């Protein structure tokens, strides 16, 4: 990776739209929106709602399925001079396994991210990420079916994130991304209806940053594998907080919607920050919070 900054799955599509507004080749990696085995329609609208310093979404993993993805989106992503990570979700261990088998065969994939933390689907998703046993099983199933670097994306909606992190590590994860969204809800006080068609949704954006930093720090104390820090990152100093807490890379989600140049601004901002503080390499600040 050229640098440790990448998009968070589901907030950058396959990069097609944003490639018109920014230079994808400057990114550390490309992370695709979650793909599933079969196409998914996603959830009933409304799917979005803005809240204080954040937003709720209940997209529900709308996607056209792995075959379509590999045929139409992946070739586009591969054209950039940037590693491509494919993010997958399934309803069952077998679906995760099968997705891994299919992707393992494909030329030019740099890694697989297991989304076991989506709060917006009825089966699978978050349920896998909220139990250390299931998280371990799904990671093991994936591990068994691919040689590719395996990143497991965890949900923050748990009491003991370190326990889950240890479980997926022992099952063979090469890295952990955290956090996915917090489950939230918002109600229209005029109509009495939830602001999301799916009733609840995932909270993202600056509102969740303190929760994310805390979880990255906790997990960094308990496992040795790299952590991709995610959650409310909007600028270089936000990213620095995650590096200090122990992340080796960061991913940007919601902030892309607000400013498509967020990631490239962060990349420049990190360089400036390192120079300013007399460091030569981001590695020099990783995990260096003085507790």
């Amino acid at each position, binding site marked *: 990776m050229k640098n440790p900054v990448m998009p968070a799955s589901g907030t950058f599509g396959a990069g097609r739209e944003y490639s018109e507004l920014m230079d994808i080749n400057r990114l550390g990696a490309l992370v695709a929106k979650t793909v599933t085995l079969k196409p998914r329609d996603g959830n*009933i609208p*409304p799917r979005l709602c*803005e809240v204080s310093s*954040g937003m709720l979404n209940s997209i529900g993993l709308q996607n056209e399925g792995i075959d379509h993805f590999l045929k139409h989106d992946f070739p586009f992503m591969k054209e950039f001079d940037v590693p491509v990570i494919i993010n997958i979700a399934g309803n069952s261990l077998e679906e995760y396994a099968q997705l891994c088998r299919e992707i393992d065969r494909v030329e030019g994939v740099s890694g697989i991210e297991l989304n076991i933390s989506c709060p917006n689907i009825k089966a699978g998703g978050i349920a896998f990420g909220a139990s250390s046993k299931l998280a371990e099983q799904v990671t093991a199933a994936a591990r068994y079916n691919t040689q590719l670097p395996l990143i497991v994306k965890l949900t923050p909606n748990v009491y003991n994130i370190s326990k889950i992190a240890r479980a997926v590590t022992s099952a063979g994860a090469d890295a952990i991304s955290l956090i996915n969204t917090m489950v939230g809800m918002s109600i229209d006080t005029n109509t009495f209806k939830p602001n999301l068609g799916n009733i609840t949704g995932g909270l993202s954006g*600056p509102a969740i940053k303190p929760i994310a930093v805390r979880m990255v720090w906790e997990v960094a104390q308990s496992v040795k594998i790299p952590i991709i820090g995610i959650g409310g990152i909007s600028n270089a100093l936000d990213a620095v907080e995650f590096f200090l807490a122990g992340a080796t890379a960061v991913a940007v989600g919601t902030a892309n919607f607000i400013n498509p140049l967020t990631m490239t601004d962060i990349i420049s901002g990190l360089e400036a920050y390192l120079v300013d503080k007399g460091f030569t390499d981001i590695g020099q600040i990783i995990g260096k919070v003085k507790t």
Partner: protein
Amino acid sequence: MLQIKADIIGKEEVMPGVFNLIIVSPEISRNARPGQFVHVLCPSGDGFMLRRPFSIHRVVPGRAFEILFQVVGKGTEALSRVKIHDTLDIIGPLGTGFKYSEDIKSALLIAGGLGAAPLLFLAEELVERQVLFYPMLGYKTKTQMLRYIDFKRLGKKTYAATEDGSFGHEGTVVDLLNRTVHNIRPEIIYACGPVGMLKKISETADEFGIECQVSLETKMACGIGVCLGCACVTRQGYKMACKDGPVFDTRDILWGAEDYEKGRASGCGCDNEAPPETDSAG
């Protein structure tokens, strides 16, 4: 589509709480088509962060474009406080815009309140293309007749309805449509306004076999087709208002239930409707 930092060179409060901004951008003014919108980073205010979408209201060709907006919440409130020569961060032009086939001869443009925003740009385009058209404008009352004069100047015959009867037809624009459509017999209807109104217009259009295109408003995050948040339910499945729309052919739209009439703001007319295939797969 591009992201620009654009100068504001004109600002007018056209009626209480409704503002018109003139924004410099040769590129957007050159490329924009009626029905498209821009995604605006409203000056930072109290606890909101997402961009806000606004239709392109008019263009000064090759130089600038305008937006017409009403203050309804924090974002529009912040936007109403910009000053001439302030700079706005804007992404646009976005969306697909209104479609018109070459051989169309007559159109009916129906605007409810702020629905006038995209339709004035369309009206100017239709004049250019020498399409005969009839503006039909619905307002609360006489003193709030947004852009009436402008439409009247451009259209063949302009119809107006006010809810209190202080000007033109007393009642809604939908009533007015139902009374007059058999006389006007347009080849196509273009409409923008509250979703309840659009649904009723589409029913009338259906009944008379008239093609009908409407501009739908949904909550948006990215505005460019990435987040899949602005979904509308159509016969072809979920479509994104920001990329596949905001203009849709009403034959494609699956409208939502009753309560859309009450003007539920955050939907596209579809949230009470089961999606074409439901989520039961996962």
